[in-house]
């Protein structure tokens, strides 16, 4: 602990000295004006962080990391947060820092690590993932994109969907079928390929909520070098299972605590709906449903705390992940519906001057939030997992 404290001070001092003042209060990922100074400072800040290896601080120094422990990495996050600073590299690297990198560290050859990891850790190379296909949604293993062995290369043909950021990424990790004769889980491999080639075409997907980072990605004789096969040939299913665990891990860790100055839903309700003389919400029917949602939200938060405590600080997501994902989905989707109901006709606007920015934003969030129960293992798939893996009930309808 004493060491960590010393480390905290060291980190804090470095941030104070290096975080560009122009980026104070800047929020990554939000729209808005960015000045030229800010843009230049952002690049400067990225370089400084990358130099320290703090883009992916737990990775080995030789691959662009800082070789730090997880508690030390947490210190960096905390010290950044304290100062309103941030680490832009995980976002710039797309799926690189959170998912591809850790999997390459585990399954990659030394040569692959040397070639791919530093670009991720510095935030210079953005990665996307080509996993789902139009006819392989929850049943990922039924994917049809073929990779033909052509000497030094695989040649890929097929269509991927929901490839987030495909249109702006430099590299892609793709799940492909390398053996059409084997059982469906046994003929899959994980390859890596550059996006800037003739055989790759991307098309952004418009969602019910509007523009989105998702794309359809078409492979027409796209080329992946055999030296970019990750893991063994036809062992891609194990690679992807591990990669998806990293995804869940990152989802659990990336929860940003709600800022305290955000209006509570009950205060929003009082503002739009009004109160009775005794201070209770004027709409008793709404109040009944609202309190249930708030209680469910509390129960969810307390469960995260409990599971973290039980694991003595080591978040073991695998056991509880499905319960928490579904509980989070239920709470958030219901909350979005309630907020819409609270806002009344102000809550169903699409555009225009009559609506406040947060009202319009809420409509888009509500719509986009419908995906929470679909992506990353649908609500139903999570219940299959709980039923089978946690409760030990036989599953007649699904292979894993």
């Amino acid at each position, binding site marked *: 602990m004493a060491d960590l404290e010393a480390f905290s001070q060291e980190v804090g001092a470095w941030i104070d000295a290096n975080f560009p003042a122009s980026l104070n209060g800047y929020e990554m990922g939000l729209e808005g004006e960015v000045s030229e100074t800010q843009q230049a400072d952002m690049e400067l800040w990225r370089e400084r962080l990358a130099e320290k290896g703090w883009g992916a601080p737990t990775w080995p120094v030789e691959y662009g990391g800082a070789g730090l422990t997880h508690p030390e990495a947490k210190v960096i996050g905390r010290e950044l947060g304290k100062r309103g600073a941030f680490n832009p590299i995980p976002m710039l690297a797309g799926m690189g820092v959170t998912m591809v990198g850790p999997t390459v560290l585990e399954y990659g050859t030394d040569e692959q690590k040397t070639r791919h990891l530093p670009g991720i850790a510095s935030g210079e190379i953005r990665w996307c993932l080509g996993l*789902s296909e139009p006819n392989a949604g929850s049943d990922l293993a039924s994917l049809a994109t073929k990779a033909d062995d052509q000497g030094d290369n695989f040649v890929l043909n097929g269509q991927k969907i929901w490839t987030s950021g495909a249109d702006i990424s430099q590299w892609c990790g793709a799940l492909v079928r390398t053996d059409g004769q084997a059982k469906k889980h046994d003929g899959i491999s994980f390859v890596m390929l550059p996006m800037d080639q003739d055989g790759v075409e991307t098309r952004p997907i*418009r*969602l*019910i909520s509007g523009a989105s980072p998702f794309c359809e990605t078409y492979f027409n004789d796209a080329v992946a070098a055999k030296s970019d096969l990750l893991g063994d040939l036809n062992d891609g299913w194990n690679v992807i299972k591990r990669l998806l665990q990293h995804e869940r891990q990152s989802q659990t860790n990336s929860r940003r605590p709600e800022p305290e100055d955000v209006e509570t839903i009950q205060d929003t309700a009082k503002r*739009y709906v009004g109160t009775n003389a005794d201070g209770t919400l004027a709409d008793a029917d709404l109040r009944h449903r609202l309190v249930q949602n708030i209680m469910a939200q509390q129960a969810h938060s307390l469960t995260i705390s409990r599971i973290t405590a039980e694991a003595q600080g080591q978040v073991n997501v695998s056991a509880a992940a499905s319960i928490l994902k579904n509980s989070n989905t239920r709470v958030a989707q219901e909350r979005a519906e309630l907020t819409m109901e609270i806002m009344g*006709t102000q809550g*169903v606007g699409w555009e225009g001057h*009559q609506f406040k920015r947060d009202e319009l934003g809420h409509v888009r969030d509500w719509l986009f939030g419908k995906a929470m129960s679909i992506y990353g293992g649908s609500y*139903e798939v999570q219940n299959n997992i709980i039923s089978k893996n946690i409760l030990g009930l036989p599953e007649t309808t699904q292979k894993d």
Partner: protein
Amino acid sequence: MALLSEEQSILKDQAKAWASEQAPVSAFREMRDSGVATGYAAPTWESMVEMGWTGILVPEAYGGADLGYLTFGVVLEELGRQLTASPLFASAYVSATALRLSTNTDAQATLFPRLVDGSVVATLAVDEGPHHNPSNLTTTATSDGGSITISGAKTFVPEALGATHFIVAATFSGDVGLFVVPADKAGVSRSALALMDSRGYGDVTFDGVQIDAAAHLTPSGSGADHLTAVLDFARTGLTAEMLGTGAQAFDMTLEYLQTRKQFGKVIGSFQALGHRAAELFSAMELARSCSEAALQAIDADADNVAEMASLAKAQVGEFLYTMSNQLIQIHGGIGMTDEFDAGLYLKRARVLDPLYGNRGFHRDRYARLLGF
């Protein structure tokens, strides 16, 4: 479906065929993407007038067919299935109802024929804030003997952009009144209200608008009762459209369950989804009974129209709420794309919920009507 008369059956078939061929959801999408200001395609509306649907509720003496509310519901259901956008409901149903229930025979004689021939497009302007609250109107109508002055601001007015006349609910000498205000009168201004279901809603402001005393639709009797009845009839009709929207969402979902394969099987063979479909179907059947019974109660001049209207709006609303969410959920990723129609149904569902009072409003009202 309720047991339909032969006439009703023929109209249902006609509406179904016309809507799915001439005004399907793809036409609505096209209208949305092209950004038509009125929120509907003119030819759609002209066809409806031609088919005589604008006269379904209008007495024969004024050129209508006087076929009743269940009959209109049959048509609305088919339009709801295809998300067909038009001022039919606002004008030929809600406004025609306001006239039917009016004691002002001069206004009837003037307006009914023009509602039928489509030269008047009328719409009811009642809401003033984010929540339906017709018993606390702030818009005022004041009389100086000869003429009436209307002042106030209305919002969430359906078809406000294409309307030629507004039927404005306002307080009037200790009561409430409904007043017919031509859209081109001095002091009337309107602006588009772009809601997520891409129709022609608007905000409408009445700035000391002078109208003739003859525009008052309830010169005798209780104006508040008049407004309540108009709203109850409107709520009931709306449930027919909502039911159609939900029924189409169910049919789309059922077809997907029957054809989409995952893990080597059609997904409808997974018991959890099969049971969910069974629950949705049951909810739809139960909701249908409420909607149809409420329409029949109006036709039978029953004394429980208010209860039935609130029952139907709450129950159909609950079904449509659940169904529209499951439409997306069961379709998975494809349901999230704008290219697929599911989102259009979901958005429409959430705008129709608050119109004339949401589920909670009507549950509360129903309980009050039952005395608890």
